[in-house]
Each structure stands twice: as structure tokens, then as C-alpha cells.
């Protein structure tokens, strides 16, 4: 127990990230199922109140983006990146532990809002965030949202932003500086490349939302008017700031999954990634273009024809590098010897579904066309084809691929296939009809709709699909749990992968590599035309390897942040100061902690 609380081992932190994020994924999924159940009938549905419904969709979006998808990717960053680059750990192991604890506590803080009502003299299920996951001003002002709901949201996101930023810097430094000898940049595995790009997006995009949230906090706590037109401010400023963060955030969510399938497809096709350098550079291009498209979320706000044209154009440009990636993945499969493992099925599912999300994205990119689609169920369909059909299928592919490496145990392939087909059918049944609901006039974020709109049938299909996804996820959960009772018999390289994580035992020893390998090829474990496979590493370390002990200080420092947030929420300055003291003492003790413990 203590060893898990104080751990600085990237592999343990990776598993902590995984289980925590998976827990939040289940909570976010449950919220989605209640939403879908309510919408199964028009005119009042199953009786979920408007106030509860608004909290559910706000928390569903916030949870899935910040507490499930980003940290599930982080689980792989943590576990896999040091192994793929031939390192013993990340550059700053204690900072890594700090990131995890801040993420966990931030997530708990946000979700505590569901039960915190009585503390504010209100019912349960009445003070959770309820202004939507992008919290548009001026609905978020004290005037229109007087309760603590929006405070929970903005303070929770501030806490989570600290976790993301700390992890972002950590992984940029790790990938740039901790590479094994010979691991040149263009020998990095594609997953590591996409992670590096993602972390650059994190460290450039998160400061923008941090600033936006600080301004919102000032508006709500100290009576400023940054976003309030009545006081000379501008609610559209919030939209610009949020989406300047929010659009790169979409690529923060999708690039890691693209990286994962760029590992899975070559392994199970027995062919190198087709067009490796093009795939890498198109990732870089996507990240750069991702910074120039934010206002395509705002076509209905009346930006004027010049701005609409520019943002429509830049958005369409993104289709080019994205298309290039898809063609290269198909090129990787072409001519291979494809083994249809669950991991590969999910990777192919990613390509098949992401194409649909990408194409509906082009209809959004066309600003006038988007005026009939934005804020309707059509855009809900689009985001779910991208983030479920893309990111989540990609993450599942990665879990089936790396689970034997992470635990030494195989997931059941039979249950995995049940999981895959149920998920694929469920997601299409849930999300495809939403294109129709939206184009037939159903706005998003409504707890009830008129039977006369004619969209009840489509909503019923969506609800059935959502529950199929729910069943599929339970199958997957059971599959995960039962591996604990399975023999730990995974070999070092069960799938015949080419990258360094497969050169060491499953699970790897605490020090990872007995000897830091020297890399001479992009595919170190494969025979290629010019390179023989890397010689196996010795079974035992030839010299003792120093492994740093654990530390309590990252966790203690992390605890200071929710204390500050609770103080702010309750308007109690002494609690804020106490939390700040915990952070300062924590950092001080952390800085002067001796190396040996």
C-alpha cells in the first residue's frame, strides 16, 4: 500500500492512471446512459428534471474529456514511453507522481459536486457543474449561475490543468533527453512521436484555458466584468479563449490514439509502418494547423464573412494531413500478413469510424453548411465518431496490445472479440442516427423534445446503441478483472513487435532494461534489409542499478490544491491559505529530499 502511495515508478503510475481513468470512464458512461434513457421518449422522457439533465451532460463531457480520455492516454504515456525510448524512467519521476495525484484529486473534487448539495443548503444532484463542458459566458456569470455549480467546474479544471501541464513538460523533456543511444528523432516509434506532439500541444494550449479560467474566476469571485457585456466585457472573448485551447485539445485527444494504431497495424501486419516519415510529419502539420482553426466552433456567433472564410479554409486544410495518415495506415495493411487479434480489430475499427467523423467534419468546416448543424445532434454525432470511434477504439486497441506487457497476463481474445463487435454495433446504433436527429431539427443539450419533431424513433435507436456500448464495456471490465486470476505467462514479445518495450520481460523489472540498449534502426527487434535484430539484452543486470525510492511529498503537495479549491468554493480565506501552505511546504520538502531513502 505505502509503496503505491509513494511510488515514482512510471510503470506503477501508468497503472494508477489507467485504473483511475477507467473508473471515471465508467462514471462518464453511466451519465451518458441516464441521458440516453431520458431521451428515449419525447415530451418529458423518463422524468429526469431539466436541472439534473443539465448537470449530467455537463459532467459527461467534462469527465470524458478531462478525466477519461486524456488520462487513459496518459496511462500509456507513463507506462510505454520510457520503455519505447530505452529509458529507466521519465525525466522527473516525482513530478510524474505529482501529476497523477493532482489528476486523481481534481477528478474527485469535480465529482464530489454530485453529493455536495447539502453542504450548500441544497439537495444532492443540484450543485454539479451545469453550464456545458465549454461553459459559455455569460451563462457562467454569478448573475445567471448563482450557485456553486460553475465554481466546482472552474476550480476543478484549474486543478486538472496543473496535472496536465506538469505531465506535459515532463514528457517533452523525457522524450527529448532520455532517449537510448542511437535513438535519433526519426527512429522514435510513432506512438512516442505522437505523444511528443501531443505534449507540445498540452504545454501551449493549457495556459490559454488557465488564463480564461482565471478571468472567469475573477468575474465570479471578485466582481470583474471580463465576459459580462453589462459591464463592458465580451462573452465572445470567452469563446475565443476556450476554443484556442479547445481545438488543440481535440488533437490532444486524438493524436495518442493515432500513435497507438500506428504501432498496432505494423505489428499485426508484419510490415513496417508505411510512410513513417510522412505519418510523423503529418502529425506535426495537424498540430500546427490545429492552432489556426478555433473559430470554426463559432460560425454562428457572427464573425463576418472574412473570418468565416479564413477559418473554413484552414479547417479544410486539416483534412489533407489526416487523409494522408489514413492512406498510410491502409498502405501498412496492404500486402501484409494480417493477424485478426482484438487489438488489430479495434485499430481497423478506428480507421473505419474515424473516416466517418472526418467526413462529417468537412461538412462542419463549410461555414454556411455548419449553420444548420452546429449545436444540433449532428455535431454530437460528429464528436462521437471522432472521440469514440477514433480515440476510444484506438485506446482499446492499445489496451489489448500492451496489457500483456503491463501485467504479464493476456486478456481473453474471445471476450475481446465480443467486446469489439458489441462496441462497433453499439456505437453505430447510438451515434449514426444522431446525424438524422440533428438535421431534422433536434438541438443538443435539451432534456425534452416535442413528439411532433419526428425524431423519437432516431432517439430510441441511439438509446439502444448506448446501452449496447454499456454492455460491451462491462464485458471488457470483466475481461480486465479476470486477468488478475490468470497465469502470468506473457512472453517478452508476445505479438512480435518491433519496438524496445518488447525487448524486456512482461511485466518489466522495476529498472526496465538490464543494460540500456544501443539503437541502430527504426525497428530494433526486426530483421530489415539493412539491419539485423538487436541482440537480446542480458537476463540480469551486469552492474547494480540504482533505483530511487518513493516519496510522500508529491502526494502531499498535490493535496494542497483541492484544499485551496475547497476554501475558494466556501469563500473561506483561512482554508485557502492552509492549502497554499501545504503546497509550499510540500514543494520545499520535496526540493530538499535526499536522493537515497
Amino acid at each position: 500500500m505505502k509503496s503505491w502511495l509513494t511510488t515514482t515508478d512510471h510503470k506503477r503510475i501508468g497503472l494508477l492512471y489507467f485504473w483511475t481513468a477507467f473508473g471515471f470512464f465508467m462514471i462518464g458512461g453511466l451519465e451518458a446512459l441516464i441521458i440516453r434513457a431520458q431521451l428515449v421518449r419525447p415530451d418529458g422522457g423518463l422524468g429526469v428534471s431539466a436541472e439534473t439533465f443539465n448537470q449530467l451532460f455537463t459532467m459527461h463531457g467534462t469527465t470524458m474529456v478531462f478525466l477519461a480520455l486524456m488520462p487513459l492516454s496518459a496511462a500509456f504515456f507513463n507506462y510505454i514511453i520510457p520503455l519505447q525510448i530505452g529509458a529507466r524512467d521519465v525525466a522527473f519521476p516525482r513530478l510524474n507522481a505529482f501529476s497523477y495525484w493532482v489528476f486523481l484529486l481534481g477528478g474527485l473534487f469535480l465529482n464530489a459536486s454530485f453529493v455536495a448539495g447539502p453542504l450548500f443548503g441544497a439537495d444532492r444532484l443540484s450543485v454539479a457543474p451545469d453550464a456545458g463542458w465549454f461553459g459559455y459566458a455569460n451563462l457562467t456569470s454569478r448573475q445567471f449561475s448563482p450557485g456553486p455549480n460553475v465554481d466546482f467546474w472552474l476550480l476543478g479544471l484549474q486543478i486538472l490543468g496543473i496535472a496536465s501541464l506538469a505531465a506535459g513538460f515532463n514528457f517533452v523533456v523525457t522524450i527529448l533527453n532520455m532517449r537510448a543511444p542511437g535513438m535519433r528523432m526519426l527512429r522514435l516509434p510513432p506512438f512516442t512521436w505522437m505523444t511528443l506532439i501531443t505534449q507540445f500541444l498540452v504545454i501551449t494550449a493549457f495556459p490559454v484555458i488557465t488564463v480564461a479560467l482565471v478571468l472567469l474566476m475573477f468575474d465570479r469571485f471578485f466582481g470583474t466584468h471580463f465576459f459580462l457585456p453589462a459591464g463592458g466585457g465580451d462573452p465572445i472573448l470567452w469563446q475565443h479563449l476556450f476554443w484556442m485551447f479547445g481545438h488543440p485539445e481535440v488533437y490532444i485527444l486524438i493524436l495518442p490514439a493515432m500513435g497507438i494504431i500506428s504501432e498496432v497495424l505494423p505489428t499485426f501486419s508484419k510490415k513496417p509502418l508505411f510512410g513513417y516519415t510522412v505519418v510523423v510529419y503529418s502529425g506535426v502539420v495537424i498540430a500546427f494547423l490545429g492552432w489556426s482553426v478555433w473559430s470554426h466552433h463559432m460560425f454562428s456567433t457572427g464573425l463576418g464573412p472574412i473570418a468565416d472564410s479564413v477559418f473554413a479554409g484552414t479547417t479544410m486544410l486539416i483534412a489533407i494531413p489526416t487523409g494522408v495518415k489514413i492512406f498510410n495506415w491502409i498502405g501498412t495493411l496492404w500486402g501484409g500478413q494480417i493477424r485478426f487479434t482484438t487489438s488489430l480489430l479495434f485499430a481497423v475499427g478506428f480507421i473505419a469510424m474515424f473516416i466517418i467523423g472526418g467526413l462529417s467534419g468537412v461538412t462542419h468546416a463549410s461555414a454556411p453548411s455548419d449553420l444548420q448543424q452546429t449545436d444540433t445532434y449532428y455535431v454530437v454525432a460528429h464528436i462521437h465518431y471522432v472521440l469514440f470511434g477514433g480515440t476510444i477504439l484506438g485506446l482499446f486497441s492499445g489496451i489489448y496490445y500492451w496489457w500483456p506487457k503491463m501485467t504479464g497476463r493476456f486478456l481473453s481474445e474471445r471476450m475481446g472479440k465480443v467486446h469489439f463487435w458489441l462496441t462497433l454495433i453499439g456505437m453505430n446504433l447510438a451515434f449514426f442516427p444522431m446525424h438524422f436527429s440533428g438535421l431534422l431539427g433536434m438541438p443538443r443539450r435539451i432534456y425534452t423534445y416535442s413528439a411532433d419533431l419526428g425524431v423519437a424513433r432516431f432517439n430510441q435507436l441511439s438509446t439502444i446503441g448506448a446501452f449496447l456500448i454499456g454492455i460491451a464495456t462491462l464485458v471488457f471490465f470483466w475481461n480486465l478483472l479476470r486477468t488478475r486470476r490468470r497465469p502470468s505467462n506473457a512472453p517478452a514479445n508476445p505479438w512480435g513487435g518491433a519496438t524496445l518495450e518488447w525487448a524486456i520481460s512482461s511485466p518489466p523489472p522495476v529498472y526496465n532494461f538490464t543494460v540500456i540498449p544501443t539503437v541502430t534502426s527504426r525497428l530494433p527487434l526486426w530483421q530489415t534489409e539493412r539491419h539485423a535484430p538487436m541482440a537480446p539484452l542480458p537476463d540480469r543486470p551486469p552492474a547494480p542499478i540504482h533505483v530511487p525510492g518513493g516519496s510522500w511529498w508529491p502526494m502531499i503537495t498535490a493535496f494542497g490544491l483541492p484544499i485551496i479549491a475547497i476554501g475558494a468554493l466556501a469563500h473561506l480565506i483561512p482554508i485557502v491559505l492552509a492549502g497554499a501552505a501545504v503546497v509550499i511546504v510540500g514543494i520545499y520538502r520535496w526540493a530538499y529530499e535526499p536522493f537515497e531513502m
Partner: protein
Amino acid sequence: MLRGAVYFDAVPLVLALLLLFLTACSGQFPQSVFEPRSDFSTELAGLFTNIFWWAVGVFVIVETLLLIAIARYRARPGAAEPKPVHGHTALEIGWTLAPALILVFIAVPTMRTIFATAGQAPEGALRVEVIGHQWWWEYRYPTLNISAYNELHLPVATPIQVEMTSADVIHSFWVPRLGGKRDLIQGRTNRIAFRADSTGEYWGQCAEFCGASHANMRLRVFVQSDSAFQRWVDQERAAPATPAKGSPAEAGLQVFRRSACIGCHTIAGVAQGKIGPDLSHVGGRATIAGALFPNTSETLHRWIMNAPSLKPGALMPPQNLSPQDLDAVVAYLQSLK
């Protein structure tokens, strides 16, 4: 060989066909974007259709390539190791240029439509101001000197210049069959322009999440012939009906005068409240409560007794009226044609 493989795209394809079929044989869709009835919405529908067919083409080509790849290259026992192909420069150039070329065919009509639908009506258009409130709509006709609430009346085949703003949070005015949505933002004026081609009743609702009753902020647009529109204008300009002595409506007027109603509602010559919609001609409307319910005696009773239970967050408090008083008020409101 194909087992497993074909199912990948069979799932969404079968669904798409099934849904198209369902749509084709279903009833009416009053908020559908597929039945445009104005120059604005027709432009948008044409653009969408154009992009849609390009997307279908790309979808079919790419998904077919994917299916062929996974069907043809399934691992077979004893097969030779695959050739370790690392890439192909000509292919890379080709599949970079091909999407770029398609995008030109999408971008050009997009830009053209952006400028064609930029929201400037020609000279002489009828000006309508739309003001969003949590959770109802106020319309002003500055040149006609009248106002309307939740139900917008417009003359057919006449250019309309809509100018929008909000009294509180951001809302979005959306009547799919007449045009694309546009946000209502406090402190700003946004514009759309359109000309409805045919008379009829068109449905719409707020599209930007605006708080508790966002789902209940609906609206109707009645596009009328010139003469019908003129009759409606004359009716709105007239003073509200005065109930006959001794009628139930007359009793209702007295109840209205001494109740909380006057604090929030205007009835010309009776009350001057500004918080809720003007009720001077409420009896002539087809719907009440933000186009949420048909305007009947039954719905008016329920609404006056307990508005927040029907529309969460509504500012109008439950009215503690005796059954007789309630009947009288309803009779009075219905008399205000």
C-alpha cells in the same frame, strides 16, 4: 476470407440505408433542414448536398480500400514473410494532392455561399429585431411600430432583415426551414437576411444552451400573404379588446388588475410590467409559454397555476388564485385577440 472484414462497414452502411428508408416513409419533420423554404436555407441545403456527395464518394473509395486490404491480406499459415515496404513517394504525393483537389471543389462554393448569405438584406427589406430572453423571444418591427412574442409573423416573398441581440445570456435563433442559426448576444447585434418563398407555419427553437429551460425556448414563424400579414399588423396595432360589462372576461380583467400579473406583464391601458411578454393580444396567438403549448383554456389554466412546474426556471411564480378567479383570468386573456 471476407468473414469479419465486410462487417466493418456493413454496420454503418446498413444503418444509413435503414434510416434513409425510415425517414422517407415517416411523417412530417417541421424542423428539417431538408425542406428549405427561403433563399437562405435553399443556399445552405444546396451546399450541404454538394459536400455530402463528395463525402459519400470519399467514404466509398477509402472504406473499400480498407476492406480489400483486410480481406486480401489475412495471414495464412505457411505464407511467405511480407515484403518490408517502407513507403512510396509517388503514392504519398498522389494521396496528398487528391484530397487537396477535392477540397478546392468544396472550398469555392463555400466561400461563395459565405458572402451570399452574409446577412445584408437589400434596401427596402422589412426590419425585424429579435431579442432573446430566458426563455422566450421578443420581436420588434421598428418600421411598423408593433411587437410580437414567440410567434413571428412575416410577409411572404419579401426580403427580411433580422437584427438580433439578447437581454441576458447567449441564445441562438434557429428556424431550419427558413435559414441557418445565428447567436443572440447581449451588447452585440447580429444579422441574417432571407426571403421566404411560401406561406406556412415554420417551427424553430433556441439552439445555444441557455440555462434550465433551454429545451423549452421554442418559436413559430407564420409566413403570410401580404393581405393576411397586413390584417395581423392592423390587429396588433389596435388597442386590446375591452371586455363587455358583466362578462366573465370583465371579471377576469378585475382579477388581473389586482393580482401579481401587472408587475411583469403589459396590457395596453391596463398594466405596464416589463419582465414578461406583452399580453395585449395574447388571445390571438396559437401557442403560449414560448411556443411550448397550444393556446387553450386548459393549458392557460395549468400555466397560470404553476408555470415553473411546466417550464423549469420560469420566473413567473405559481399563482394562488381561487378557481373562479382563475377561470375569469383565462376568459379575459382569451378575449384579447
